[in-house]
């Protein structure tokens, strides 16, 4: 069942995926910790002042957005210089860091003529991009 060749092939896939995922996660976490430090220390002024948080973090999200004027979708990018919203860079990196490993597997599978898995990887990547775009969730 598991010939040495396909066991080797599965390890190649795993190592390529792991390498790209590892680096994506590291970059995301570093961005998250640095931006949070800048937020807490006051280096970057927050969009919602820290002392006002207790009066809004108990509200449903739609009321919170109305009350604080926080944008939805990718609107936060325009306010990424604000301490709180700058953290979304790290969060977006973490939520998107599976994309490079998935796309990295496509040529590997195509080279082996494993079209089904190449298509599965491309489809998952498409789902992630659609989710990120906000088209599906009405984020714009």
């Amino acid at each position, binding site marked *: *069942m*598991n010939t040495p060749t*396909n066991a080797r092939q*599965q*390890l190649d896939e*795993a*190592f390529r*995926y*792991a*390498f790209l*995922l*590892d680096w994506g*996660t590291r970059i*995301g*976490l570093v961005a*998250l*910790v640095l931006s*949070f430090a800048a*937020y807490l220390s006051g280096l970057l002024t927050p969009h919602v002042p*820290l*002392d006002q948080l*207790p*009066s809004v*973090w*108990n*509200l*449903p*999200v739609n*009321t*919170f*957005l109305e009350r604080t004027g*926080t944008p*939805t*979708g*990718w609107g936060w990018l325009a306010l990424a210089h604000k301490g*709180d919203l700058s*953290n*979304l860079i790290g*969060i977006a990196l*973490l*939520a*998107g*860091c*599976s994309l490079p490993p998935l796309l990295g597997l496509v040529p590997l599978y195509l080279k082996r003529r494993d079209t*089904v*898995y190449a298509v*599965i990887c491309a*489809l*998952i990547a498409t*789902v*992630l991009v*659609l*989710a*990120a775009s*906000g088209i*599906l*969730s*009405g*984020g*714009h």
Partner: protein
Amino acid sequence: MTAWRPTLALKFLWLLVLLLAMPAFAGDSVVPSSTLPWWFWPLALFVTCFLIGIVAVPAGIGGGTLFVPIIGGFFPFHLDFVRGAGLLVALASALAAGPVLLRGGLSSLRLALPLALVASMSSIAGAMLGLALPASVIQTALGLIVLGIVALMLVSKKSEFPQVARPDRLSSALGIHGVFIDGASGRAIDWQVHRTPLGLVLFLAIGVMAGMFGIGAGWANVPALNLLMGAPLKVSAGTSGLVLSLVDSSAAWVYLNRGAVLPMIAVPSVVGMMLGARIGARLLHILKGSVIRKMVITLLLFAGIRALLKGLGIWV
């Protein structure tokens, strides 16, 4: 005799829907605010997540499963933000463990990718549904799900190396099989799976729950992979993390796009949980797994009852 049964079933279903929706009509869910200074809650969140991280690893469940009912039940944050943070906690833990498990041969891409495709699609639907429904309905359903997890933890058996006599046609066509070296015995174990179509349907439902409640679905993934599809326990646990990393990513984007990710809640949770999990992994050989597991079951039982009562408006 035969006619009244469906009617009765329908009435019961309607009653259940009404019961679930009733607190929603009572006004949607502004959580009572706290009089403590703002910094108290993120600090308490960090400490709580650190402790959850320590016990989650030896208990064999993802931190996200404990996070949402505990933080949603006892902290003054709205459930929308708690679920957004819960997804990120589960995602960050899965991402951190993923590369190690892949390199160790404990996580199979061939097994994970088809399941992740259906579950990531349904998790988007689950997240959208979760953000559309009133928080009290979600809180009530969360309570029921958590109590279900407790029951599952109490009764489910695990099979270290399930016997799969013949792989099904779909798994054969997809080439879902592999080999891993069992660290305990040093043996190379060949594995294959069966009941793949049923597994795909189950992962569709798991994706919806992961997105809707913001809990990592490791508690459901592992039994589905191990007991239903017949993957070895260690491969099931490793592959579950990989599936989670993709499922939670899709759902996390929905929460992010809808503005339901509040950094002051999400970041202390992610950092606390990851630091705690590192300690938990080191204590894995020292702590008695069965004792921790009983403690976590008690904790989940309490958090589940709290979520249920909070959702029903009995204990707000």
